[in-house]
């Protein structure tokens, strides 16, 4: 267990930050460019995971467990979101036979 700490601390914190930032940005870009609801949703998950990793890194850095606890919270709630989200998408698919987000723009102006 200790060895894991050392291995992680061997990598400077900045690398983690940049790495997570990049993953997060990839997620954001994914949300931006894709039109398929599911893919967008996956990109969001990617963003969340970036955050998870960052939290883990920080918690090791400060060696304070609360960060990792937080990660579990996020995972749990992400799961909940997945459940709800997918069901919404399914509901939409039932009505529109499509999961392209741009199909739904009756509400505007």
């Amino acid at each position, binding site marked *: 267990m200790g060895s894991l700490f050392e291995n992680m601390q061997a990598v400077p914190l900045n690398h983690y930050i940049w790495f997570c930032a990049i993953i997060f940005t990839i997620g*954001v870009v994914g*949300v*931006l460019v894709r*039109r398929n609801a599911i893919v967008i949703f996956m990109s969001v998950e990617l963003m969340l995971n970036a955050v998870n990793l960052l939290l883990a890194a920080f918690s090791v850095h400060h060696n304070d467990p609360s960060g990792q606890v937080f990660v579990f919270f996020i995972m749990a709630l992400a799961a909940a979101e997945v459940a709800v989200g997918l069901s919404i998408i399914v509901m939409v698919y039932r009505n529109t036979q499509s999961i392209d*987000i*741009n199909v*739904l*723009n*009756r*509400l*505007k*102006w």
Partner: protein
Amino acid sequence: MITSLLWLIPVLPLLGFVINGLGRNTLSKGAVGFIGSGVVLASFMLSVCFFFELSSSVEKQFTVNFFDWISVGDLKIPLSFLYDPLSAIMLLIITGIGFLIHIYSTAYMHEDAGFGKFFAYLNLFIFFMLILVLGSNYIVMFIGWEGVGLCSYLLIGFWFTNNSYASAAKKAFVMNRIGDLGFLLGVFLMFQVFGSLEFAKVFPQAANMLPGDNTMAIIGILLFIGACGKSAQLPLFTWLPDAMAGPTPVSALIHAATMVTAGIYMIARSSVVFDLAPFTQNIIAIVGAATALIAALIALTQTDIKKVLAYSTVSQLGYMFLGLGVGAYTGSFFHVLTHAFFKALLFLGAGAVIHSLHHEQDMRHMGGLKAKLKTTFATMMIGTIAIAGIPPFSGFFSKDEILAHAYQHSPVLWGVGVLTAFLTAFYMFRMMFLTFYGKFRGSHHTEEHIHESPKAMTIPLVVLAILAAVGGLLNIPHVFGGNEWLAHWLTGAKVTQSHLELDHTTEFTLMGVSVLAAVVAILLAYSKYVKKAEVPVADEAPRTALEKLSYHKFYLDEIYDAIIRKPLDAFSTFFYKIIDNKVIDGLVNGLGWTANEGSKSLRLLQSGNVGYYIMMMVIGIVALLLYTYLSIA
């Protein structure tokens, strides 16, 4: 007694107004006439008593203070009366002639539906006129000043169902208002200078000032503008001829004897101020002379008997202003007096003629009435001679005094005066001849019904005729060994006097010339209208340029219309349609419009497209992060 009962003089007519006004539909005509004339007679009696009391007493000025009317800060305007020789005479004229005209009206207006209303108005007029002459400060004077304007409006528009009459009334009021503004501004300036508007406070201070003071000149001009409005001088006289729309007694009372002389009264009252402003005096003199001449020229070609008299009134008023301008305050005032007599007489006479011809006013349809209307003719002839300035009738003395002073001031003015006198004599006799001589030119039907007027109308004529004949005795100049009673009398009223330094020969020559001119004029008129029996041509008939000019009153009305009324109305429409509705309101509405348009376009941001929303969000986030980066670095 004066101090204790002075208030009765104006209040009695007011009472008459109230009674007649309220009871105009219920009271019988007799009652109305009785009340209407009675109250005026009563105040005439009072004025007579006071007159004698005044002449006997040493104290020549009585101020009666009733209550503070307006008092704000340093501005204190009491409602108070001043009774002195000047107002005493005015009272006599107003109530005396007023009474006669009331009597006359009882007959003249007898058939009229608005009999009660008429007498109510007349009483009201008398009331305001008395306030005007009794006021002990400019503001109380101003009450009367505008009050008489109102009554003149009401009486000119007495037959208001006739739209042109109503317009004439409106014109009179507005023209007066123009003058009134001048009057007010003059008063304001006066208050700035003297810190008071009481005659008793203003004049003593003014007396200590040196002549030629600019402020005084300005005050003088402003007051004079006021006088121009009220007394129908250039350029504001055009309302007076139109004012003949009113019943003839009104023309006699308001537009000949009393109201129109208010301007002269006011200037004579403030003679102290005007003496300090030679510049202003010259203006007054010139305006007066010009008015006298122009009005006389216009009168030459008029065919409406009342119009002739109206213009002659304007012309005579011009005379009076000429007098004031050259400092002959007494002379002018004297002329006010005599003019009141003979002009009232002439108007009433004309009224009698019109009455007997069933409201025919065009002299082209008269003639040969001498036989039918003896009294009227006789009395009117006296009046005409008086106005023409033939000695020993009243007009001669007053006119002569003015002319003499004018000559002393500048021979040119005198020349104009004499020329006017010549014209006056001519057109007056033209009127007489056209009306009474030759043979009747009207319809046969009317000819049969011609009849002398009832006593109620002839008696006032006779009385006035006597006054017109002997009125001159009031102020016989030294040349005739007279003692200039009026002049002395007026000294009690602090009316300044300018003294005649002419030797008697010059004076006599001057008189001679003017009388000669008059006589020549009369003869001319005689030959033209009696010998040749010429009759003025019909309106549309061709005239020479000069005749046209005169007949169309020098086109003054048209000119005013073109340079004042029309532009103002145009402005009105322009301001309303363009400036107000388009520019200003457009600006206001523009704001609302902008918001609305902004809304229309802004709402398009909400495209309904999730991808686009997220894009916007990201842009926002990036911007914020950029801000963060900049603020840290």
